């Protein structure tokens, strides 16, 4: 039975074109790009081509602003640690309560080592309070790190306004844009972000490759010290095949993003409306006016998310949950808690996230099975 994959904010299928682009670098062109001979040197040229593709996608001023990393988490860590190293006298980081653990757990780690961390709240729609952001920045602030779009709800933060606030206050801004690339237009010439993180496997490139944008003129301290690769900003032999794959994935995203987004939004809305029309007591979590086109997060009253996921899985439908029981923790997702979603709804939250490969048939399969699943679980529930 075909898997109906609606968990694309977790990871995406590697695009066939990306695989085709990568294969020569696994089969024939396996030279070390740092080698002096032609065999290795030709690989280096393809890496630089990929760097240009990434730079174009982000609207960077040039490929020299792109450093390849292993993943979004490394990009986040490198940006934050670098900003702190550049301002050793400053002791404050401003971030939000709804960041990805790649930022949130690093912030907590730094807090334990004496940093003053401000975790900005969000409202019930998952929106950031920009006045609170403005007020939280002081002379001691080394960095503001705010995600561009939330991975659980798809809520998009107004990064241009945030960047303007940071710029006014003279504070560098890092944004985790892992969920945004290929789903929103991005032109960093217009948005004064100092650092931006992205990840390959969220845009149909493989896992194990990411990129960090570092605006020209921004100080940077490498986390990985060794050889001279990446202009001395990240040592270690380049993951050539994956870098080429990331470049190709960016090219595809650039070429198709408008059509992809139109299609994903249409399918998402069809799914959302179909579920709300056919199932009572369902709530959309997040600001529906400012969301990624591919994401919906729904709270089903009186049932628990892991149970829903497993029953969906019986029909080969893959989704995700903010439920505690699905994650191994005891509290539901920190994003649901930060939004003040009532616990009983947070425990029953399900995220559907689409990609360019999803079809109406996928959505119809969910609409066919979901009402029965919720009905069945509510019949089991003592509070339905």
């Amino acid at each position, binding site marked *: 039975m075909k898997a109906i994959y609606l968990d694309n904010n977790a990871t995406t299928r590697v695009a066939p074109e990306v695989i085709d682009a990568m294969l020569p670098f696994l089969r024939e062109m396996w030279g070390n790009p740092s080698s002096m001979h032609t065999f290795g040197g030709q690989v280096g040229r393809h890496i630089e081509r990929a760097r240009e593709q990434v730079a174009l996608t982000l609207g960077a001023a040039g490929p020299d602003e792109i450093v390849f990393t292993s993943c979004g988490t490394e990009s986040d860590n490198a940006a934050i640690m670098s900003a702190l190293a550049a301002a050793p006298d400053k002791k404050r980081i401003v971030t939000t309560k709804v960041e990805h653990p790649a930022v949130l757990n690093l912030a907590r780690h730094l807090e334990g080592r004496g940093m003053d961390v401000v975790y900005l709240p969000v409202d019930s729609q998952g929106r950031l309070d920009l006045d609170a952001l403005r007020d939280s920045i002081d002379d001691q602030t080394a960095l503001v790190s705010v995600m561009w779009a939330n991975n659980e709800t798809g809520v998009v933060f107004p990064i241009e306004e945030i960047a303007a606030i940071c710029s006014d206050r003279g504070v560098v801004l890092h944004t985790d844009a892992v969920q945004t690339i290929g789903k929103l237009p991005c032109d960093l010439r217009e948005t004064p972000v100092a650092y931006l993180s992205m990840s390959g496997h969220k845009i149909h490139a493989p896992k194990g490759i990411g990129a960090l944008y570092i605006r020209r003129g921004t100080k940077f301290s490498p986390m990985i010290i060794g050889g001279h690769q990446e202009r001395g900003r990240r040592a270690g032999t380049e993951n050539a095949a994956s870098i080429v794959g990331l470049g190709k994935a960016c090219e595809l995203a650039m070429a198709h993003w408008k059509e992809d987004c139109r299609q994903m939004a249409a399918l998402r809305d069809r799914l959302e409306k179909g579920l709300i029309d056919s199932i009572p007591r369902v709530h959309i979590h997040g600001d529906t006016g400012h969301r990624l086109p591919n994401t919906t997060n729904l709270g089903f009253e009186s049932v*628990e998310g892991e*149970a829903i996921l*497993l029953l969906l899985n019986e029909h080969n439908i893959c989704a995700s949950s903010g439920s505690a*029981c699905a994650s191994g923790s*005891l*509290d539901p997702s920190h994003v649901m808690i930060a939004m003040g979603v009532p616990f009983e709804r947070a425990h029953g939250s399900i995220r559907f996230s689409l990609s360019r490969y999803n079809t109406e048939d996928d959505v119809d399969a969910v609409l066919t099975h979901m009402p029965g699943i919720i009905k069945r679980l509510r019949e089991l529930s*003592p509070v339905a």
Partner: protein
Amino acid sequence: MWNYTEKVIEHFIHPRNVGEIENPDGVGEVGSLACGDMLRLSFKLDDEGRIVDARFKTFGCASAIASSSALTEIIRGKTLEEAERITNRDIAEYLGGLPEEKMHCSVMGREALEAAIANYRGEGAETRTLEGTVVCKCYGVTDEQIRKVARENRLTTVEEVTNYTKAGGGCGLCHERIQEILDEIRNGKTAPTTPAQVAQEKKAKGLALTNIEKIHIIEQLISERIRPALRQDGGDIDLLDVDQNVVYVRLKGACENCPSANYTMRQFIEKEIQREVSPSIRVEEVRA
């Protein structure tokens, strides 16, 4: 995804005994929506005082639903005295095991059963009133609950207590108090809470055990150590009787016709019981 056993998935997909009994003899409800799981158990007794029907309604994850289903299957046909001896480990074992992080689901089943029996006996309302002082404010877990579950399951770390009771799984402010309770148990400063614990304490002091105390220890040994080991090889064991120093058991499953059954009986089962109860214990196999 969790590594659930086939039996957990089977009971989750096809839960047994869902619903509520009209005019039940006992009803117990534990957990809460805020905590993410909640179980309402009701039972009916026949004229001989055996549980003739047991039904549940559960809000929770796959293991909570499977544990509830298993519980109702386990207690059907049992007297209340027999049902009272069921531990959370019995529920987990019935399901072929639960992930450590999900053991609190089996504890919830045991607590719902306690609440339902207490309700039948007129000792409490159907929604359980917790004994002791609340230690974990996030999940409303008391010191008495922690002591009981920790002793019955031989828990030694705060993390284990969290897996089994949820206590400490929220803000973490109670970790220190949970550790104190664990230390009290380790240092023998708390009173034992089950007959088996009373018997083990008596044995540790060199005092003679009564027959019923021996039975409690042997039941616990079979449930916690012997049966799980035999089940790993497809076997099983039932305790039939204990007469002075002779323990009668029946081997089942792959053990029943195993050429090494006698070796298993003497070198594993008998030695385990001798070590915990008395060197003079002899184990006899009764064949069907």
